[in-house]
């Protein structure tokens, strides 16, 4: 077990702001100073307003990668994953810190980088291979394999601009999949292609690590793919390392950190939303078990309202919405006699009903089945995570809901 990649205290910050006429003078000063080996005089100016003009994308990131392992890197958008990958693949340099690597590195941040539309599939295989760091001989040796893997052999001498987007992606991935670096850096390339091809890609990724003993750094939003492929996972948030550990534990941490976005609210009586008749004091989500809200578990909304008078025929109407506003369902409570004062209510969503995704809901208080008292919109916002431990398919599963139904087969 030897270390092949060692990331030591890597930080990266970006200078924000407009580039314009003022930068010319500054640049000349800075370049002249550095040429003479002196300290950059403009540097100090920027360090002063650190919070305003400097964006820190990575903050003191350190970890090691062991030979032959598949290391997953996960985190929300903006957590610093892409920046880290760009530094690891030498596309941009760190602001401070060091990265040491042993062996040939190839990175796959995009499928089909450098494909030229006017050139044929054959010519592009060689060009793309060379861009990714293969020599001509290596590509030539693997050529037949690449063509076969891509499944576009009939069109290999046609300019790629005439390819369908699917063919284009397949050819591009085929080239990338036949790279033979000791260290492979992959960014979410699995998000492309049809189901069949995705399966093929996943299989190839597994072969590369398990079968051929290569080290893979894999960045993805697809937690199921990460869980399935990786030996260890690094969780990034706001540019820092939160946790490094085994996949399921680290991914749970990721879910936990993200699921508490908006999942409980509490108001003081004077500024609570509502009207003269009814106000909402608090709302939260309670999980039936564990600490991750996923599709296999039931969960409960709890509400506390305050009523300023009695109602004879009171009921609730709850509307669930997807994050883009699509109406998922409506559910109504039975009518009951409500007393003035504090009023508690809860509503349980059963397990195996919802699809994974982001949701929000509104709850309406109604009198006599027809007179709305108040509609509380966008009460909570939460994410239901996926759970596919026993499945082979990691792509998106569509549909407003994803009920578990009684099948006879």
């Amino acid at each position: 077990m030897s270390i092949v990649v060692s990331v030591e205290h890597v930080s990266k910050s970006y200078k924000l702001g407009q580039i314009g006429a003022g930068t010319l003078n500054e640049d000349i000063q800075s370049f002249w100073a550095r040429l003479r080996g002196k300290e950059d005089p403009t540097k100090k100016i920027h360090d002063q307003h650190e919070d305003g003009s400097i964006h820190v994308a990575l903050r003191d990131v350190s970890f090691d990668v062991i030979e032959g392992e598949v290391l997953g890197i996960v985190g929300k958008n903006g957590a610093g994953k892409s920046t880290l990958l760009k530094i690891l693949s030498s596309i941009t340099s760190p602001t401070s810190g060091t990265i040491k690597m042993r062996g040939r590195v190839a990175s796959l941040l995009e499928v089909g980088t450098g494909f030229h539309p006017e050139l044929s599939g054959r010519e592009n295989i060689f060009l793309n291979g060379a861009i990714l760091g293969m020599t001509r001989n290596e590509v030539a040796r693997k050529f037949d394999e690449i063509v076969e893997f891509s499944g576009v052999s009939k069109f290999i001498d046609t300019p790629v601009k005439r390819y369908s987007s699917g063919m284009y992606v397949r050819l591009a991935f085929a080239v990338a999949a036949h790279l033979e670096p000791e260290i492979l850096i992959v960014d979410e390339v699995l998000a492309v292609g049809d189901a069949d091809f995705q399966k093929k890609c996943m299989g190839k990724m597994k072969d590369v690590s398990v079968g051929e003993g290569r080290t893979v750094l894999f960045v993805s939003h697809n937690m199921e793919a990460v869980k399935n492929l990786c030996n260890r996972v690094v969780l990034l948030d706001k540019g820092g390392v939160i946790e490094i550990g085994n996949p399921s534990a680290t991914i749970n941490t990721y879910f936990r950190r993200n699921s508490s976005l908006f999942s409980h609210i509490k108001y003081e009586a004077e500024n609570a939303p509502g009207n003269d008749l009814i106000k909402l004091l608090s709302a939260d989500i309670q999980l039936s078990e564990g600490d991750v809200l996923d599709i296999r578990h039931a969960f409960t909304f709890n509400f506390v309202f305050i009523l300023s008078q009695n109602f004879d025929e009171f009921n609730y109407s709850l509307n669930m919405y997807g994050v883009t506003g699509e109406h998922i369902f409506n559910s109504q409570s039975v009518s009951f006699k409500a007393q003035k004062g504090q009023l508690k209510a809860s509503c349980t969503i059963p397990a195996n009903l919802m699809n994974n995704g982001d949701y929000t809901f509104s709850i309406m208080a109604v009198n006599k089945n027809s007179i709305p008292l108040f509609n509380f919109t966008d009460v909570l916002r939460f994410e239901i995570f996926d759970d596919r431990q026993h499945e082979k398919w990691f792509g998106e599963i569509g549909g407003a809901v994803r009920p578990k139904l009684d099948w006879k087969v």
Partner: protein
Amino acid sequence: MATMEERYNEPVWTKIITPSESLFRFNFRELWQYRDLIILFIKRDFVSVYKQTVLGPLWHIIQPLFTMSVYLILGRVANLPTDGIPPTLFYLSGIVLWNYFASCLTKTSGTFIGSAQIFGKVYFPRLAVPISVIVSNLISFFLQFVLLIPFLIHNYDRIHPNIYLLTLPLIIVVIAMMGLGFGLVVSSLTIRYRDLVFLIAFGVQLGMYLTPIIYPLSKIPVKYQWLMSLNPVTSIIEMFRYALLGQGTFTLQSISYSIVFSVVLLFVGVLFFNQAERSFVDTV
């Protein structure tokens, strides 16, 4: 003995990424490792331009012929002297060499902007792009040079090719270095100052009129000739004409000046380029 073993177990890092490297870093070995890529870039540059054209690579030859015709008319109208050389040869020789310089300059100056997409996604030595441009333009220079030959033969009794023909490789190298050097400086600056993209096309055109392409240096009043010679391309063009046609104005000093200028320029260009390469992904 133990220390020996420890030393063997210490991993040998093949790649170390650190924040700032010296501006003078120039990694020939890495560039050599990527030679296949350079060759493919050359092929791409050369082949892709003429895909879906009827005449294909013939355009390399047609372009200078058109330009020559324009100058012939211009020269006739304005009664411009040609140093006693047949005008066709005078213009064509100037155009061919100047074209090489100009295309090296304009095409390498677009390196960062033209390749921003690919540079942001994959690493390879960035110099591979401008170098491939220089070479693919060299191929088109040779094609155009071949075009000169029938004109030379046709006028064999009015020209005097001489021993200076041996300096031809030097001439080409110096012109290439100057085009590359200028191009690298400009390409590095375009990252921050896009204004240069517009200026460069204009600048190259202006530069041609400040270089003896459509007029001979000998017809410039002697007291202003030194001013013309400040332009490092001037004496190279004159030497090229002299070698080929037996007529041209240059001195050892003026040629040395051009050579030194091209070396320094290329050095500065690489310096700028290295600097730009490190930060451009964050800027573009």
